[in-house]
């Protein structure tokens, strides 16, 4: 069997095993047609935000869901990716592919440094250290006056060769293709020898050591890959927003990414994307719902969202993917209703 045919067999096997994710991807491909005929162009924008946040959450999910590393600082990598566009632009680098390459390299290096320092610790220490390093980068960009400091900098959408990003559909599909490729890559990674080892480390680190493997090497590699994915999301985010400010890497965004993963389903391919859909739909719909009940408080939708989050933690384990799996299983096998693998 030739290399390509082998690859295609692997890919189609993987797609069958991760049907939900690829259905969502297909849905995003057709969504612009729907918005066009329903005359809802605003929702294309929402869909782009969903895909971008979903992509970043998928990156975080590699360490959080598969590797068991609770990183609370991944927004920093989105920010670095975004500033690669902004700062590149500032110095006359307007080629989008160059921005992507720069984002990948810089996020990879930062991921390596932060990962190396933070992964020497575990548990609560790791959570706090990743948060602290993200804050360090946040304040760094706040204090860099030449790049707009607190107010950020507005940027022109980058030149991606023949892809003119000022055509909104082209931007949409650039994001879509990147998301699909990231999904494809992650699908391979989590089932590969590397991914299996990473998951085994989450399950029992000392047994992996007893097998003669150095867990730190795998964790750092996973951390770097996830940082790079978040950086890619950041590069596209900056182009979508036409604007970069430290806000993009505010620590609450790291929290958002975690929420998205938990909502959707930890350690699953479809989970982060599903979570992003639900999260952004809530963000869009809670104010509208509040507006109909108590118009004066429509802006204060967080007052509902906060408790909702606590409820999800207390009562909703396994996320939406787990819920769907449980439903399917109970249909196929009425006796067992527990969420299976």
């Amino acid at each position, binding site marked *: 069997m030739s290399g390509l045919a082998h690859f295609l067999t692997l890919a189609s096997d993987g797609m069958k095993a991760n049907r939900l994710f690829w259905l969502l991807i297909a849905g995003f491909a057709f969504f612009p047609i729907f918005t066009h005929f329903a005359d809802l162009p605003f929702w294309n924008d929402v869909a782009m935000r969903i895909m971008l946040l979903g992509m970043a959450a998928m990156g975080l999910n590699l360490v*959080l869901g598969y590797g068991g590393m*609770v990183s*609370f600082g991944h927004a920093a990598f989105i920010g670095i990716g975004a500033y690669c566009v902004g700062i590149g632009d500032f110095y006359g680098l307007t080629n989008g592919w160059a921005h992507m390459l720069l984002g990948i390299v810089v996020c990879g290096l930062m991921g390596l440094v932060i990962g190396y*320092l933070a992964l*020497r*610790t575990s*548990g*609560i*220490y790791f*959570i*706090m*250290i990743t*948060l*602290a*390093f993200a*804050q*360090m980068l946040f*304040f*760094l960009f*706040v*204090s*860099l*006056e*030449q790049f707009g400091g607190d107010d950020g900098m507005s940027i022109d959408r980058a030149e991606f060769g023949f892809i003119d990003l000022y055509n909104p559909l082209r931007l949409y599909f650039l994001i879509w293709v990147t998301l699909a490729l990231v999904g494809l890559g992650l699908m391979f990674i989590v089932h590969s020898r590397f991914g299996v080892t990473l998951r085994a480390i989450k399950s029992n680190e000392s047994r992996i050591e007893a097998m003669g493997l150095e867990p730190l090497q795998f964790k750092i590699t996973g951390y770097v890959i996830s940082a790079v994915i978040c950086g890619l999301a950041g590069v596209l985010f900056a182009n979508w927003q036409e604007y970069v400010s430290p806000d993009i890497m505010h*620590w*609450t965004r790291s*929290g958002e990414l*975690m*929420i998205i993963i*938990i909502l959707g389903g930890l350690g699953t391919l479809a989970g982060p994307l599903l979570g992003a859909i639900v999260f952004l739909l809530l963000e869009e719909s809670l104010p509208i719902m509040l507006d109909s009940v108590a118009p004066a*408080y429509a802006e*204060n939708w*967080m*007052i509902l*969202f*906060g*408790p*909702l*989050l*606590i409820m*999800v*933690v*207390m009562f909703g384990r396994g996320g939406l993917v787990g819920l769907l799996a449980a439903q399917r299983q109970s249909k196929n096998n009425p006796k067992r209703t527990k969420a299976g693998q």
Partner: protein
Amino acid sequence: MTFTLILEQTFNGLQAGVTLFLVAAGLTLILGIMDFVFLAHGSQVMIGAYAAAAITLATGNFYLGVLLAIPVTFASGYLLEYLIIRHLYRRDHMEQVLATFGLILFFNEAIRVSFGPAALFSDLPPSLSGFVEILPATPYPAYRLGVIIVGLLCAVGIHLLVSRTRIGAMVRAGANNPEMTAALGINIKILFRFIFATGACLAGVAGMMLGPLTAVQPGMGEPLLILSLVVIIIGGIGSVRGAFVAAIIVGLVDTLGRVFLPAILRLFVEQATADGAGPALASMLVYILMAVVLIFRPTGLFPAKG
């Protein structure tokens, strides 16, 4: 002139340090002894600041505001632990992060709904708004000096509480070995609730004292929360002594760095470069300090667990 500036900024650094310590003291115990990731500790700072400011505005008396706000913050910590937190001890860290993140969103929004999004300002009483000569011809704001003194008194109080009382002995035992403490029949539930409420109260006091110095507004506690996490990492999780030393170091490094680092850099590099890099470097200084501590002592300067 320069000496005066250094002295003044050192006092400012001390003031920032003791405030940080008040936030970090409770949090380090919550993280270390209870093994609970509590992100909403910054909200306790905000609750304290709002309680004091609101009562001060209502009664017109600053001292009354602070006096009445203290039991309010203790009660808010106690209730929070009773209603929500105690159900989360057995959950994993990530779930704790999410739930307490939800609490932050809720508290910030609740304050915004109740007090409006604009900052609250309360004036200092005349007795505190003057200056004190810390050295001949070196005036320093009386209120800031008061903050330092109150902070140091609290630190002494916490030290006595931890080292001299029965509760303190339980806290120390808990820091060393939580299972052992439980096995000894110490009522962990009550101990945890007490630590939590006291920690909330201390954070609240920090908020009250910061109120007149900064804007009392929603989300005001979060920068302090993150700096106090840095303090706890440097000092060692679960160590009150470590939190004190690290808080003073971080307060001094942060304050002095912001003022003097650009000037120091100018000695070595061109003015333009120094003016650009100085503030950036200064804002990262405490985090760089944290990274250095991590490299050489991954468990902090005063690790509580042996």
